[in-house]
């Protein structure tokens, strides 16, 4: 399920043959990570090689899309696609499965933000195929 990017810009990501499947899944509302078939490390950002054990036997794994805020900031000075944007939240979310991913927190008041806040993924359509995995405070 994807929703329009609403207030935040949703610039298209750089996609390459190593990451095509990841971004295709976002368009279908699914969040993938890479899993190492040898050491079972869940790898972020996705890549062919396992940075833990050097194995090339890695596979895609769909994760729950649930996690909690590891760190966040309200940035008042956007650049690039975000230049002139109202203040927006840049964050790392620690997925329940382990990896910490860079993202934005959306659908929130700044006053609610806290390290540890439970969040869930939403997908914002970039208009170019891929959708950006962003996170909002968990509702269930």
């Amino acid at each position, binding site marked *: 399920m994807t929703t329009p990017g609403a207030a935040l810009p949703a610039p298209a990501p750089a996609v390459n043959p190593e990451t095509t499947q990841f971004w295709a899944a976002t368009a279908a509302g699914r969040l993938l990570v890479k899993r190492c078939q040898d050491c079972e490390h869940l790898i972020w950002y996705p890549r062919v090689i396992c940075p833990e054990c050097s194995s090339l036997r890695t596979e895609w794994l769909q994760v729950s899309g649930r996690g909690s805020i590891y760190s966040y*900031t309200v940035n008042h*000075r*956007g650049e690039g696609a975000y230049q002139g944007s109202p203040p927006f939240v840049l964050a790392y979310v620690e997925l329940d499965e382990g990896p910490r991913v*860079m993202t934005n927190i959306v659908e929130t008041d700044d006053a609610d933000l806290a*390290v540890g806040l439970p969040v869930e993924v939403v997908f914002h359509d970039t208009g170019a195929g891929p959708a950006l995995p962003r996170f909002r405070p968990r509702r269930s």
Partner: protein
Amino acid sequence: MTIRGKAHIAGAYEHPDRKIPDSSIAQVHAEVALGALADAGLSLRDVDAYFCAGDAPGFGPVSMADYLGLARLRYTDSTETGGSSYVAHVGHAAAAIATGKCRVALITLAGLPRSQPVPRPSASALAPEAGFEQPFGPTTVSMYALAARRHMHEYGTTSAQLAAIKVAASQHAQHNPRAMLRKPVTVDEVLDSPMISDPLHRLDCCVISDGGGALVVVAPEVAADLPRQTVKVLGHGESPKLTAGGRIDLTYTGAVWSGPRAFTEAGVTPADVDYASIYDSFTITVLQAIEDLGFCEKGKGGAFVADGALLAPHGRLPFNTDGGGLCNNHPVNRGGMTKVIEAVRQLRGEASAPVQVPDCEIALVNGNGGSLGTRSAAATLILGREDA
């Protein structure tokens, strides 16, 4: 084999200007090169090794070598680790000299981000992480803000403690007539300055300046024949800090590895350090480095800096006595070069009188390049007075 005592910094020069409207970048590289060589009592004809980083215009070290007429080069190094590059270059030059690859190494930095602002090169779309970071709008300040927030969460560090770092830098900058921000500020003034990316305020951030600097590193036998007091390279360490396959930890830097390597090679400990130049892209950069280098326990950096430890000349760890990147200058957004230069001044007894550390014998220089919010590279040097 170590580099301890096998190379000396014989020349150091900081461009005097903070805004240079009518020069090319190559020209400023040349000005600082000549300045450092003159300081050493050498000339371009003596240089047989050249070191530069990504700020050097053109093709690696080759374009600038050609521009400068460095016809006798037998060693080049264009290690690019952002602001820590020049700290690493000193270590690399010392290693090359110690193994007989060269005798006179020139290192230059120059750039004009104030006078000739160009759009920040967008992180290359070919970087393997690009698709998973750039679309979310990370900026330099906001990524360091993520590090500051997490450090606050884990250790109770406060914005007022971070502000104490800026306050100390500003106390030093008032004695530097060339500093961009010479007026001492208070903790409250830092906290009242506009929020850029919380918890970092405008005054938690370094300045943006044109400028540059250069260093000349030479073999001991070359140093012995020079009129000028030189500075001994005692130890060097470096280390990237990576994102660990998705387990990034925002509370420490690569200095946890580069620091011990440099101390071990030099045969000294943090307690032996009389003066420290610590790259200060932001206040949080200094706080984490102080902890990582072992000047205080991990997580206690806030209390350490709030206690006046950084104030020269009599604090426990006098730092950045030129005012640093927070107040003095920050040529090309790369602070490592000016950090080495001020350490050389301290060891020669040539810092501004009110902030000169008495009997300064051992200095530490720490650089960090890249971003504390993602991947970065630390480099640490231990330098000693000529008789150290």
